[in-house]
């Protein structure tokens, strides 16, 4: 009984249906164990794997430089910036906006560097629902290829103070 103490030698390997279930469950676990590494090599969606250590003020400077060199317009006073396809882009999370607006071309790959000027933030691209975590002091590089065109919203999904629910941004993806 679960509340009484078993005496003597109670060791017994599983038999019958118990053994069958343990085998089935183990097989399912092994299937699941293979899918993550398999997708890591074959799949096209993987958690970003490149990180650099940065000083927040150095990152902010780099963002401003990026905005100056590649600015193509503005939206509600937020600069719209178009990086080179295949090149680097910079996205800053700060209390309380994602800066700047990025203008990308569909099916082109970009290395978007994301970091925070202040607290932790959560980058969330909608409505496709892609999410990564953003830390100050860490430059997290997304090697990203937009496969759909249109206007995409950015929101923040990590609590970052009282303006957290007003922290938004945009990514515009043009058809090629």
């Amino acid at each position, binding site marked *: 009984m679960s509340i009484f103490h078993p005496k003597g030698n109670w060791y017994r390997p599983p038999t019958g249906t118990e053994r069958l279930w343990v085998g089935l469950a183990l097989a399912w676990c092994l299937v699941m164990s293979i899918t993550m590494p398999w997708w890591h090599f074959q799949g096209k969606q993987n958690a970003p794997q490149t990180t650099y250590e940065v000083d927040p003020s150095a990152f902010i400077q780099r963002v401003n430089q990026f905005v100056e060199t590649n600015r193509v317009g503005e939206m509600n006073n937020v600069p719209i910036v178009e990086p080179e396809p295949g090149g680097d882009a910079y996205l800053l999370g700060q209390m309380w906006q994602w800066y700047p607006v990025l203008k990308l071309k569909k099916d082109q790959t970009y290395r978007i560097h994301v970091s925070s000027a202040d607290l932790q933030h959560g980058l969330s691209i909608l409505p496709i629902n892609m999410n990564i975590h953003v830390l100050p002091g860490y430059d997290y590089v997304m090697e990203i290829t937009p496969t759909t065109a249109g206007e995409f919203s950015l929101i923040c999904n990590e609590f970052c103070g*009282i303006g957290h629910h007003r922290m938004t941004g945009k990514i515009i993806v043009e058809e090629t």
Partner: protein
Amino acid sequence: MSTETVKAAAHRVCETTGLSIFLKAQFFVKINAVLAVIFLLVGGIAALLLALTRWSNVMLLNDIWYYRMITLHGVNMLVFWIIFFEMAILYFASTTLLNTKMFSKKLAHVSLALMVAGAVVTNYIILKGQADVMLTSYPPLEAHPLFYLGIILFAVGALLVAFNFFATLYIAKKNKTYEGSMPLVTFGAATAAIIAVVALLHGAAALVPTFFWSMGWMEMMDPGVYRLLWWGLGHHSQQINVAAMVSVWYFVATMSTGAKPLNETVCRGAFILYILFINLAAAHHLLVDPGLSSEWKIWNTSYAMYLAVLASMIHGYTVPASMEVAMRRKGYNKGIFGWFAKLPWKDPGFSAVALSAIIFGFIGGITGVTLGTEQINIMAHNTLRIPGHFHATVVGGTTLAFMGLCYYLVPLIFQKDFYMKKLARIQPWLFGGGIVLMSFGMSFAGTYGVPRRTYDSDFGGAILETGFDPIAHIFLGLLGVGGVIAFVGLLLFLVLIVSAVFFGPSIKGQKMPTWQTDREQKMTDDLISKGYEEEGKDYHIKTPGTIALVLIFLLSFAIYYFANWAALADLWHIR
């Protein structure tokens, strides 16, 4: 300490089980259970207010109080309610089930004082508005030093209770107060205690330096390192909850149906898989974090090839299978599911535990493993899918199981009977049902990208406008409705428990009143007394009903799992 003093310490003999209940330990079981329920109420009131705020048509609180209540809710539910209750379980499992008094009464008092002080201090500073940092308190967010100090005091107290638990196990063995191996329920409690030690050490590692930083004595910890250490506390404590919950399943299965574990080796083996591997999965909070490699992420989030998930699936079979065997032995042999219909559904302790297993397995477990895969997490991190998952595990699973245990705790330990038994019978369904609706509301809203921990789902006032599909708002409404129903279920639970403990008729000297018919209870009692003598005997009774249930479970798991991979393939390419 001689065997004589250890065994002869002040105790009473339980009229229902024949086990010895040591009076000093009993005091600590009672006080920890009562404190647990007090903090459950505090966290529960916060829960109602939050549900009525995320329900976008209602939006009850303002933004400041919303964020404050999330912190209050998280800390009281995930730390104070659940750990106080687990301390009660540790005191019970190490003394009554091992026929020994506890190792140190002094230590028990000191730990209690620390835990109460910590819980009060933390609640105070949150309500004062100086700790709006969420339960996780991620730097550079900074709270008043008392926030960290309160949690640290509580954690130290809990660590001392764990020490007392292990010391009690030691003196029991040394003084030979029981023959053979410790009972399965105690083994499960020991699993929980081991995991607790790992969790609390990580908590100290994360929060002590952060407390020093808040006092100006130290530099801020690196935020990435903080997250790694904090989730060593945050996630590992969920695994204490899993181990404790499963131990409760075994306990209530025995008490309500006379079930006995079919194979001690298999059940204990599963608990050991928890001990060795379950804590690795804390990595699933960091899957889309910078700085950690895919190798680290994949190895750890899979609990080392899902060996700990295997353990849960094993318990998911052994617990119902043991009950199926017990029911079939009692003559309920009709077809594949005849035994299932004849289970003691009128016993709220049983129905709470049965619902807990179903909700934890089908909703909590399946979503958890799936969302905790490195790549699928890209679609889920910090969306409402995450709270949708963990309310199914911690609330629909552990909290509901603990509520079920209370229906036994009150008559067996407090020696009181319940009023309003008809209401007691529906309470687990009300609470469980509300939580399921709320979890669905959260999960479906989350698939649209609705974020967690966010006041205004329409981002009103933002420089660049955005919003969600109206369907997402309907799901937020479901979240609200489910939350209200669950709160009513919680309130009913509190009324039932408080009225019984403080005003209920005493049943001293009597056996625990049964929720079943007398005939059924007699058959259950016979199985329990026979079970003790029949240790190790194989019944060769087949369990087709349980096999059908677990196969349905496996199929559901596979469908949900692969559906998510299919959805992932539609996203932009990223690495």
